């Protein structure tokens, strides 16, 4: 009979200690190989420790709830025909590192703790008893390694306390560290290569950005927004637009969809005078305009600016396109005059290809309506018994609900939808 000491093996994944949860054996029990001894819990999983040998339990170490470092004696067994370990009590300075029998990683399979799956750490008894190939450290002794190796281990989150050192006096080399990592030994939880970025950059909100912030805040604070989204079939309009572009003369600008929207607005706004308005809410007066001054939301290098096309009712389609291009370019260049930046009565905001499915446009206070065409896409549409591909665009819009009722807003958008779905209406007198 020989005394075999079962030690808490390296359960891997940076686990340095484990808590005893349940004892399955008691002193005096005769146990078989692979029989459960004890359940231990790490911060990652509960692991069932099974005995690598058969024998009689002569001592168990640790009460339930006790935290034991890796390498601590768990169970002492009397094993038939086994010659080796002395009692755990007589070797108090036994090193904390797991008794890896051989520095070669293949020879020492490290059991991986997997949640919910009990694993069976195998520790070959005969080898455990053999003198380790590396020198051991007395308990509490600082590990021996060069500053460069210490720094590397620290960066990797590895405690050198558990790394076997192959050098003289147990010195840990860079190779030892590599071997330890390769053998499943426990890289720390924190990622080695990416340190957390803690920089916070403060930018003072000044100039145009502050103006934008104030305007948006003012609009949202004052105006109860009512947002309405409708789907429009622009197949005909697109066909017309492409034809016009293909056949335009040299002095005619290339047409986007916006000039058509501008013209459509010009046609329907007389029916909805309160939509083409500026609401002086401090004075409690709504100024409704006969002329149509369309704000064009424009992205400039320094931020959002809304120049306007004045008296769109006087402009034809081509002029609308020219004027649109001119004022938005002036805004981008920073050359737009005050006159070109104030006085709009309704605003168009389009992100073009970035238009998305829908948006909740913020009204350009003190206007009461804003129209935001979304992205034009080919979509399958049911027409009678068939599904056909149509050029579809959603139309997002917001209204000042203090002035424009939901019903009126819907009516307005439905009129606009009819116009752009049947572009001939735009040009009919």
């Amino acid at each position, binding site marked *: 009979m020989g005394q075999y000491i079962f030690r808490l093996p390296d359960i891997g994944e940076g686990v340095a200690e484990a808590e005893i949860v349940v004892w399955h054996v008691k002193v005096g029990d005769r146990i078989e190989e692979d029989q459960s001894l004890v359940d231990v819990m790490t911060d990652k999983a509960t692991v069932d420790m099974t005995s690598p040998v058969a024998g009689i339990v002569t001592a168990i170490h640790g009460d339930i709830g006790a935290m034991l470092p890796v390498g601590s004696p768990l169970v002492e067994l009397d094993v038939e025909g086994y010659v080796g370990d002395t009692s755990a009590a007589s070797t108090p300075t036994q090193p904390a590192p797991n008794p890896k029998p051989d520095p070669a990683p293949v020879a020492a399979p490290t059991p991986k703790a997997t949640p919910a799956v009990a694993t069976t750490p195998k520790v070959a008894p005969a080898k455990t008893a053999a003198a380790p190939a590396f020198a051991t450290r007395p308990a509490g002794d600082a590990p*021996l390694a060069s500053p460069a190796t210490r720094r590397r281990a620290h*960066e990797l*989150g590895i405690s050198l306390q558990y790394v076997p050192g192959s050098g*003289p*006096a147990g010195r840990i080399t860079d190779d030892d560290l590599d071997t330890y990592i390769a053998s499943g030994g426990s890289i720390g939880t924190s990622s080695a290569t990416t340190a957390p970025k803690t920089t916070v950059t403060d930018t003072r909100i000044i100039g145009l950005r502050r103006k934008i912030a104030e305007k948006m805040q003012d609009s949202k604070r004052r105006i109860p927004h009512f947002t309405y989204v409708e789907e429009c079939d622009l197949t005909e309009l697109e066909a017309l637009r492409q034809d016009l572009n293909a056949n335009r003369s040299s002095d005619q600008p290339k047409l986007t969809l916006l000039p058509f929207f501008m013209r459509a607005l010009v046609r329907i706004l007389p029916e909805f005078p309160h939509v083409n308005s500026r609401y002086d809410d401090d004075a409690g007066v709504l100024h409704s305009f006969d002329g149509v001054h369309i704000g064009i939301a424009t992205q400039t290098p320094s931020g959002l600016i809304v120049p306007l096309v004045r008296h769109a009712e006087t402009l034809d389609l081509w002029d609308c396109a020219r004027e649109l291009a001119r004022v938005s370019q002036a805004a981008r260049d920073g050359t737009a005059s005050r006159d070109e930046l104030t006085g709009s009565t309704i605003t168009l905001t389009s992100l073009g290809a970035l238009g998305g499915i829908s948006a909740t446009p913020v009204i350009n206070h003190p206007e009461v309506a804003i129209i935001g065409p979304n992205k034009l896409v080919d979509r399958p549409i049911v027409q009678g018994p068939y599904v056909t591909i149509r050029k579809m665009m959603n139309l997002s819009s917001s209204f000042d609900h203090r002035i424009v009722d939901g019903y009126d807003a819907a009516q307005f958008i439905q009129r606009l939808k009819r116009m752009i779905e049947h572009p001939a209406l735009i040009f009919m007198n």
Partner: protein
Amino acid sequence: MAQDKKVTQTKAKVLIIGGGPGGYVAAEKCGQLGLDTILVEADRLGGTCLTRGCIPSKALIHAASRFEAITAAATTGQFGITVDAKPKLNFMETVDWKDGIVGKLESGVAGLMKRAKVRVINGWATFSDAKTCSIETAEGTVVVSAEHVILANGSQPVELPFLPFGGIVISSTEALSLPDIPKRLVIVGAGYIGLELGIAFRKLGSEVTIVEAQDRILPLYDSALVTPVRRWLDRHDVTLHLGVKARGLGVDGRSLEIETTNHETITLAADRILVTVGRKPVTDGWGLENMALTMDGRFIKVDDRCATSSRNVWAIGDLVGEPMLAHKASAQAAIVAEIIAGKKRRFDPVAIPAVCFTEPEIVSVGLSPDDAKAAGIPATTQSFPFQANGRALTMAAGDDGGFVRVVSREDGRIIGIQAVGQHVSELSGEFAHAMEMGSVLADVAGTIHVHPTLSEAFHEAALKSMPHG
């Protein structure tokens, strides 16, 4: 007053207080790592080390040794060299030369700051909270708020309440800029600062008396290391009063009264009384109390990353504990800068080497034999005397009882290295390197050391420690 002074507000990623070897190294490193950095120094860049500590004292010690050697040649002759006339010392010129070195190094630090794009603010910083301080400068008040604060305020000489600085009572700062050589210099405190300066002034011609409350000089070093220094003091007529208490100035104002263990009072005539009873961290007068930091006795408590109890407030150097040494501060500075830059670092030296620039010099790295014994580590201690070292003999450095001593464990691991002897300060690098690399005796024994050099004594001591065969 507040109305007519200009107040400017500014921000920084890193705010560093103190331009000594902790602060300026931290600032340089932070700057190099691309962090927006402000360094605040109320006095001159370089701090205690550069302007009133390590550097000026070493200049003075060197000049004193040269003067002593030439004086010896003029009186008894040495190496066949005789000088006909006795050398003259113009101490003002010595001080000017020393100040020139300090000035050169100081502007060197300023250049480093410029290259690292560190904003240096000359003024006194007072913290209103852990991340905000106002700095009184010549141009007005600058209020700095920073994301990170590195405290490197350093230390100052301890004053004795019954012997306050002023008049003939001076600290090490004044001792380095005296207008003349005091004829009779009485030193209170036989630590390394008192002994370094006392020995230098003895070489320059002062009559030196050293008063120490403990019964030995250099209480931090073991007697074997101290004996050669003690022997030099005896040979050079330095009077020692050990185990006595300084009582205060004598009634004539030009003497020190001391009380012996037998309760006798002795009056020591003095032109200057140099008080070197230690240094204390500078923890008053800059708003530390507003920062809510946890203290560790008189020091600021930090962890192994030099982090204080307040997030993103770091402290380094003399503020955070012993040993109060420039090179410790600089090492901590580099680590903190890298941590702020997002790297994972900690301050984990195996040993912090320490040197006494006494006559002869003392180096200590790691554990002494007594330390090992106290820690319960079975250790082997072996010394090799410079008397048997060729290079030491050729420099007349073999007859003062110097040696190199190696303390090693049973497995050969070197746990301590000490030396005493002329010029041994330059061996400190090899000693510290051996310790940091985790050397065993065989590593040192297997390293070829140049012959003839003093370093051979280290090699020999390691060989002696190894089991034969």
